[in-house]
């Protein structure tokens, strides 16, 4: 996973609360076989509306999503995070996130920062004053800045540390590679092995 320190890019406003993961990506796309290629599925129902913010060329290439309260509630589908990442988002700021969504985001290198409702309003106002403006989300300082507006955000220490270090769960586990190898060294010979393939006698 890439290290995350400062996310800089166009900020897209999503002025809706209670955006559930069914809205972020509908169930019909869960049959796909890849973890990538979900960008066209993001907010699938809403983006059929030409007026929807995702269709506004001013925000093309946005990397920071500024969303209303309770973003990512509902179904646990990890596809919701994959779709946001695929579309190009590296950070989402909201006054509150769905628990599972927040956990999934941390696994996939998506910075999910919690801001106050008042700060949400000032960030949205800053975008409105200058649509297409860049945001700068600083994970070291735990602040987000749009134009002159600078607000603090919250993120749990463990997730922040992993993001700063660029560690996904796998990367983290591989720090214990030596212990894993040592464990494998004393693993008993009777334990299951799928290779080489063996057949029942007579096959």
């Amino acid at each position: 996973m890439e290290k995350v320190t400062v996310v800089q890019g166009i900020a897209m406003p999503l002025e809706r609360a209670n955006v559930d993961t069914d809205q972020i990506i509908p169930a019909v796309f869960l049959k796909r076989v890849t973890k990538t290629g979900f960008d066209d599925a993001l907010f699938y129902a809403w983006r059929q509306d030409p007026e929807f913010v995702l269709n506004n060329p001013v925000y093309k290439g946005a990397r920071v999503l500024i969303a209303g309260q309770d973003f990512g509630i509902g179904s646990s589908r990890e596809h919701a995070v994959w779709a946001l990442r695929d579309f190009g988002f590296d950070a989402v700021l909201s006054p509150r996130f769905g628990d599972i969504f927040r956990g999934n985001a941390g696994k996939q290198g998506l910075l999910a920062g919690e801001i106050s409702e008042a700060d949400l309003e000032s960030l949205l106002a800053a975008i409105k004053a200058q649509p297409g403006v860049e945001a700068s989300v600083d994970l070291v300082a735990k602040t987000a800045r749009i134009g002159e507006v600078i607000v603090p955000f919250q993120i749990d220490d463990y997730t922040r540390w992993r993001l700063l270090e660029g560690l996904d769960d796998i990367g983290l586990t591989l720090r214990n590679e030596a212990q894993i190898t040592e464990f494998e060294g004393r693993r008993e010979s009777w334990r299951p092995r799928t290779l080489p393939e063996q057949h029942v006698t007579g096959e």
Partner: protein
Amino acid sequence: MNDSFNGKPRTLAEKVWDDHLVVKGEEGNPDLIYIDLHLVHEVTSPQAFDGLRLAGRPVRRPDLTIATEDHNTPTLAIDKPIADLTSRTQIQTLRNNCAEFGVRLHPLGDIEQGIVHVVGPQLGLTMPGTTVVCGDSHTSTHGAFGAMGIGIGTSEVEHVLATQTLPLKPFKTMAITVEGTLRPGVTAKDIILAVIAKIGTGGGQGYVLEYRGSAIRSLSMDGRMTICNMSIEAGARAGMVAPDQVTYDYLEGRAHAPKGADWDAAVEYWNTLATDDDAVFDAEVFLDADELEPFVTWGTNPGQGVSLSDRVPDPAAISDPNERASAERALEYMDIAAGTALKDIHVDAVFMGSCTNSRIEDLRAFASIIKGQKKADGVRVMVVPGSARVRIEAEAEGIDQIVKDFGAEWRFAGCSMCLGMNPDQLAPGERCASTSNRNFEGRQGKGGRTHLVSPLVAAATAIRGTLSSPWDLTAGFDTVAERPAQPTEPAETQDGVIA
């Protein structure tokens, strides 16, 4: 053996856990647990392999990994290309991934193909004292061998492929003690349906369940797998049975079971796994096997079940408001009225299959009832063996012919109508007696209605066309002489204590 427990008496689950500890988590961080066996199928693995590819990581232990095709596979015309394009793509993706990453695959048409939870045990790969994971919640099945079988999500599948470990927080332990002797016609499926009805679909949350007691000991491995399989329906992370001679007899001689000195060393270790006499469980539940009757679900979650001789409960009599609302919704969806005698309910279909009940003994039990009989008019009966090998074994015993003579369909192996990801589905409004594990709304097809039952009840129901127990049959039940008089009381179980 690992002696890090300092003489503290431990449960079976704790012993298996301790012996797979790679790194002990500090200050609330998870433990890092080694995984002995990783089972893979086409639905939950594509994104995991994709993740490896993106990160440039190999599969750490292809020799501890095995894949098969089950969820999407057709059960008819398996030599033809799969008609559904999405399913075909998912299967082809698994094939490509296994080839690229060096993972052993048993594809459709292979002799070892089948439902992933049938294939592992049948190859002798599932062993006592091991950790088994799969991107599928019914991985709990493997606990029947005294293994810890844990269902995982796609990110975790990738994690295991890359590291052969999982970061896990320790579970609590719950003993489910079933004492007594099952009456003829009552099976493992009835035990587990009764357990779930008793503790509820969330009752096992956070726990590893250990099934104990004389009734569990007397079960075959196939029966124990049926029980452990449905642990997840009680919300548990895993279900286990301590290994014993029944386990060893099942395993010995299987393709991947240990041989020679390895076998002796393994058995010596396996004999140490049973829960210590003075070990303490976090919770305990008791069930009296003597009193059990064939069980059936009436609602839309596996906890909504009663004895088959009973009536559909009245939601108004349920005190918990959430459960009452859920029962009301369920009866509406199932289109049955409170107070209906379960035995008056007609079915349109009978599904005999799924990782809960598709092993050879399940098919034998089903065949023993239908032999020489004809299915009820207008009832569609589908028999789907759990694996290609089970199918072959059954055919060698003539079970296929019994099934066909009965008027039922004899299919190729796979998940089939358990979840209807392939063409085997219920039509909207159709009602089915099913030996599978989930009666959720639409599980077997949009608008389909599912009653979970044992293979014996499925067979009796297929004969009569209404939900029926083998006790209701005038012929065809091998042990008719032993058939009990019609019980007067519905099975009432001894009160359990849940901490």
